[in-house]
């Protein structure tokens, strides 16, 4: 019973499950450990899983009804002030065919489903009886010998492996324990996400959001949504519910002495949102910390002798205005980490030297490319001009532009000038323009 595993994965979130699936496919003997009652139990969030890595993990997943909720073919970005909402709206049948480029998932359901898929793959592998998914187990320590990871400890039980993948998510205590992340992460790099699940009659939901079959909508909100705090709002359509929520800067919340839940309640009173959620019933509320995706708080490196870090534990996340991306990064990094382990097993070399291939692969992937390229966008999003002045300006413009008063109509440029004067200086705009131009 005490035999050694090829790999122990800590955390059955998207990253850990992706890694486990990859290991199972490659006939590795591994242990996947999750502290929640089941995979997904601790994952209150949900959202859009962007890109099509899921199809790599579970080919033709779209043929199954389970696991995912809707595919996205309709995207909106809304700027709001107190009373108005100016929306950029894009819908295309181009997105209607699988593999989809974005699917909405509810994590508790999705993770559980993916875990079942991993189990099926384990059952078909050479190590059907020797690989495990163990839930309700908290990993308390990564066992290190001579600065090399050799296993894990839970309670007074110890388990050994050639390699350990840490996929523990945002609250990365183990990553800190092995010394790859500073103990103190300043609050300005932390966001808090809160979300309500609002239930509708399915027919009503589909009518209201113009959904057909399993198509879905994602909508981001900037401005009034976050009530002056840095951050923004989001809305996704699930199968029978919508997720409506906010992502807010922890430091800014603290400084402005505002509570996320109050801001969400205020957001819901906005006339446009009120119409959107009318007759819906809140069936769930949850809150969770997310990292801001600032590269400055990434672990120093993502490998060590016998050890790899992936997913949000490695702070792989991006919140650059048009979407929060984290699950796709988690998935890809999990796959890459596992592939590196498979290669290392072949070479029988789990040293730092061998495992650093993971970081290389990650750097070559879209994950790090995106994160590197969009750093400025991340900073831009946290600029107060972006969260307050800009939305006000845009709404003001919209209001005047769309108002017909039976008076001589002003030219759009004049209206825009007036709006700019009222809500921002040209200087602000130029700054944002330059930043934005560079960032995106």
């Amino acid at each position, binding site marked *: *019973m005490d035999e050694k595993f090829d790999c122990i994965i800590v955390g059955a979130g998207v990253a850990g499950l992706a890694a486990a699936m990859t290991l199972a496919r490659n006939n590795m003997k591994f242990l996947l*450990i999750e502290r929640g*009652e*089941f995979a*997904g139990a601790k994952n209150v969030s949900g959202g859009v899983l962007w890109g099509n890595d899921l199809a790599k993990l579970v080919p033709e997943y779209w043929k199954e009804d389970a696991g995912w909720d809707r595919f996205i073919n309709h995207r909106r970005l809304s700027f709001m002030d107190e009373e108005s909402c100016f929306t950029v709206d894009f819908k295309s049948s181009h997105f209607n065919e699988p593999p989809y480029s974005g699917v909405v998932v509810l994590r*508790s*359901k999705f993770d*559980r489903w993916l875990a079942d898929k991993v189990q099926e793959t384990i059952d078909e592998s050479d190590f059907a*009886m020797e690989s*495990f998914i*163990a839930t*309700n*187990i908290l990993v308390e320590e990564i066992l290190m010998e001579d600065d090399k990871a050799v296993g894990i400890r*839970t*309670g007074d*039980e110890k*388990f050994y492996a050639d390699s350990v993948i840490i996929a523990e998510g945002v609250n990365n205590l183990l990553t800190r324990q092995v010394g790859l992340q500073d103990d103190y992460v300043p609050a300005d790099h932390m966001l808090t996400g809160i979300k309500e699940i609002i*239930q509708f009659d399915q027919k009503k939901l589909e009518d209201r959001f113009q959904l057909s079959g399993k198509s879905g909508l994602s909508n981001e909100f900037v401005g009034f949504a976050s009530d002056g705090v840095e951050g923004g709002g989001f809305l996704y359509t699930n199968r029978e519910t919508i997720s409506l929520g906010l992502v807010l800067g922890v430091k800014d919340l603290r400084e402005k002495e505002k509570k996320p839940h109050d801001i969400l309640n205020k957001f819901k009173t906005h006339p446009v949102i009120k119409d959107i959620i009318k007759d819906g019933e809140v*069936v*769930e509320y949850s809150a969770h910390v997310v990292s801001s995706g600032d590269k400055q708080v990434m672990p120093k490196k993502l490998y060590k002798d016998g050890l790899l870090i992936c997913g949000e534990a490695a702070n792989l996340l991006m919140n650059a205005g048009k979407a929060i991306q984290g699950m796709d990064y988690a998935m890809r990094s999990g796959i890459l980490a596992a592939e590196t382990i498979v290669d290392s097993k072949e070479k029988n070399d789990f040293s730092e030297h061998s495992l650093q291939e993971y970081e290389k692969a990650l750097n070559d992937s879209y994950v790090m490319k995106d994160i590197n390229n969009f750093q400025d966008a991340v900073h831009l999003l946290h600029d107060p001009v972006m969260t307050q002045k800009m939305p006000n300006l845009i709404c003001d413009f919209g209001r005047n532009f769309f108002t017909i008063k039976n008076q001589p109509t002003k030219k759009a440029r004049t209206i825009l000038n007036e709006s700019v004067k009222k809500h921002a200086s040209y200087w602000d705009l130029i700054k944002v323009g330059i930043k934005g131009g560079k960032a995106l």
Partner: protein
Amino acid sequence: MKITVCIKQVPDVNAPIQIKDGQLIQDSNRKILNAYDASAVEAALVLQEDHGIDQVEVVLIGPEKAKETIRKALAMGADKGIHIITEEENSFDSFAYAQLLAGFFKDREYDYIFCGKQSQDTDSGLTGSMLAEFLGLPYTTNAVGLEMADGDLTAKRQGDSGQEIIELPSPGVVTCSNDMNDPRIPSLKGIMQSKRKPVDTISVTDLGVDLSEESTKTIINSYEEKPERKAGEKFEGEPEEIARKVAQLLDTEANVI
């Protein structure tokens, strides 16, 4: 000596529940080992540890997916599982489950059968004593403590006003309250070992129990929300102040003093 524990997979009552058109929409992912059965398994394991009982086995009637609940009991330490497989859409009442269990136990060997005192979701509390009656066995319900001497059990059962200490010869049936113990949480080793423990599967038809019309004697027609109890007023501030206010309101507004 052998103890067989009847375990059931139930929806987690802590999970959000929705009702649509009178039907219960349950998250099929949030199914757990009935807490009362977990206590029954725990009790059997403690007896095994203390009195060298040869075997603790668990039996569950439920769909394919309920197997994970058997694994949970095996991970806690039970030696063997028996899965009586039903169709996903089957819905039985306690009477039918008890008949099926009686069919199962008819030709088997056991010294004691443990059940949970009730199902956490339906709170019926019928199956155990029904099973005892079908098998013609003595039984005791709502046990909050168990002791064994010379192979016979003494149960402490929670009665209406006190605890009744009851001697129960074998073979017999005990239904267990969760007040009896705190079920162990499976260790990682336990989870790993559980995978190698035997689980026999039996189909309902193999039991040869005639589940005709009469065997399900009660039906559930619909579900509804409980009439909501609104939160009243919440008083914060100086203890003397809120104490005075609430005392007065209880007298003048609520009229309950």
